[in-house]
């Protein structure tokens, strides 16, 4: 699950999941959900593979979200379904979605960037918790 938390000028995203794979998938869903508010209407007609190398979990989350943001910003691709596998070397992900359609997609925030401020990925008693603040 994910929720948004308060940060004065920007928006915080808090994600909880039983394992890292779901944590990263849920974080991406939360991010795209800031940009497109009705993710439920997004058709899964396009598939893209994303691969990121890295061992530091916080940087890995940062780079992952950045890549997903870039798919929207540069290719106008709205991704809504993420199958993520976090490994010792980084992550691989199969992402599905469709090109931006202004008629059907209800646009919310313009996300300028993922920030390092308060970026955390940590294990909890129930699984994993991540927090990230995005610049709006």
């Amino acid at each position, binding site marked *: 699950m994910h929720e948004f938390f308060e940060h004065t000028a*920007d928006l915080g995203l808090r994600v909880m999941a039983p394992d890292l794979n779901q944590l990263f998938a849920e974080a991406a869903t939360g991010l795209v959900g800031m*940009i497109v508010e009705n993710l439920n209407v997004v058709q899964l007609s396009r598939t893209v593979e994303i691969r990121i190398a890295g061992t530091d979990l916080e940087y890995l989350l940062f780079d992952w979200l950045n890549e997903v943001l870039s798919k929207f*910003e*540069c290719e*106008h691709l709205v991704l809504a379904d993420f199958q993520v596998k976090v490994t010792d070397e980084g992550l691989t992900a199969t992402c599905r979605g469709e090109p931006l359609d202004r008629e059907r997609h209800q*646009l919310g925030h*313009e996300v300028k960037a993922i920030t*390092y401020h308060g970026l955390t990925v940590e294990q909890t008693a129930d699984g994993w918790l991540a927090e990230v603040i995005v*610049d709006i």
Partner: protein
Amino acid sequence: MPKPGFHGPLIRVNECCWRIPKSYKPGMRVDGLIYSSEEMIQQLVADQAPEQVANVAFLPGIQHASLAMPDLHWGYGFSIGGVCATDPSDGGVISPGGVGYDINCGVRLVRSNLFFKDVEPHRKRLVDQLFRDVPTGVGRGGKFKFTPKELRRLMVEGPRFLLGRGLAVERDIEYTEAEGCLEGADPDNVSDRAVERGKDQCGTLGSGNHFMEVQVVDDVFDEDAAGVMGLQKDMICVMIHSGSRGLGYQVCDDALLMLRGVPERYGIELPDRQLACAPVHSTEGQHYLGAMRAAANYAWCNRQLLMWQAREVFASVFDRTWQELQMDLIYDVAHNIAKFEEHAIGDTGEIKKVWVHRKGATRAFPPGHPEIPPLYRGIGQPVLIPGDMGRASWVLVGQAGSMEQTFGTTCHGAGRAMSRTAAVKHAQGRRIDHELAARGVIARSQSWKGLAEEQPAAYKDVDLVVEVVHRAGLSKKVARMRPIGVIKG
């Protein structure tokens, strides 16, 4: 998660200024100084903004103090409303966080020879046509297309490049801070991804707090200065607030990636990763500066093209050319930028060239400063302070106090009082556009949420912010501007 407040020392220096002594945390090289008022300082300690002012004082080469303007609020790394100057000859650093993601976010103000009574009968049509013709909102491209080669020239030359395309006139360049061009821009340092994000966004407003407003001069406080700028009571103006769009965001992001592990390599200890920096003279520092300047020049072109589109809409609605409507640019200021400037430092008044980081802060050079256009040299540099869309914005001029106290800097806006999530909660069940209409403002936005987050109550009262910088002698009130039409993302 409870919202952490600031519990450190805040010592009152005078009516307008509070000090966080450098003894507060080991690692602070200078004091923190916060410009505020009795009324607003109470709000400030509710979050981490003062802590961030203290953290900036860690930066190598920082001079005088880590400064904060009265519109200070919690950012990431640097607070918004923060100012710091670093001396390259004293190991000084350049920090992308001290500029922000939206490189050269800024404001421009255009006058006209129309008055409220002339515009009132056409107001709805005017605002609707602005909303239709000026691209706003997420992922919207603009009508101006540039080839990769043209985009490179645009990033090197700024709005001067647009002269040749018939999208700017010489006067527009003259009345833009730095004439819209930071020398030393290096498009080779701007990544393909940044170019990709920005290639069709030059001339688009974006979303968040960016806006284009039709304003009326509500009150004049300094007749002489207003006269020099061509402003009179009840006159119609257009204010534009936007920055470097996706291109600038990506330049900042790329720089932060490049700087991973770099502060450690130079032996720089930082309390927050978002303060990442590199010595000005380092390869990394120079790389960022080349890219930052390119993004800044792009941003000036963006505001130029936004203004151009506003002129076209006015010309169409009022059936006269923009020249006949005398829609001249009064001035354009950057409020997220780093500039290399000469300042007198400390008690000795030694003149040094320093990198002034303005993160949500505006240059406010006083009368006589050689870097302001001759027309304004007698009154000081115009400073444009956007407020919220229900109350007011301000036109100020720089004062001598800014050179003495804040590296020639003043505030940049109202500053948020409410987080975005809190503002949305506060707006549940309300029609912000109807409320604004009742206050005499026609507001058009791509989304309900956009208006909810930017509702007047989400901001501090800009009048209070301006009062502080006026009293502190950083800048002087010239005119208060009242919005009558606003378009947003």
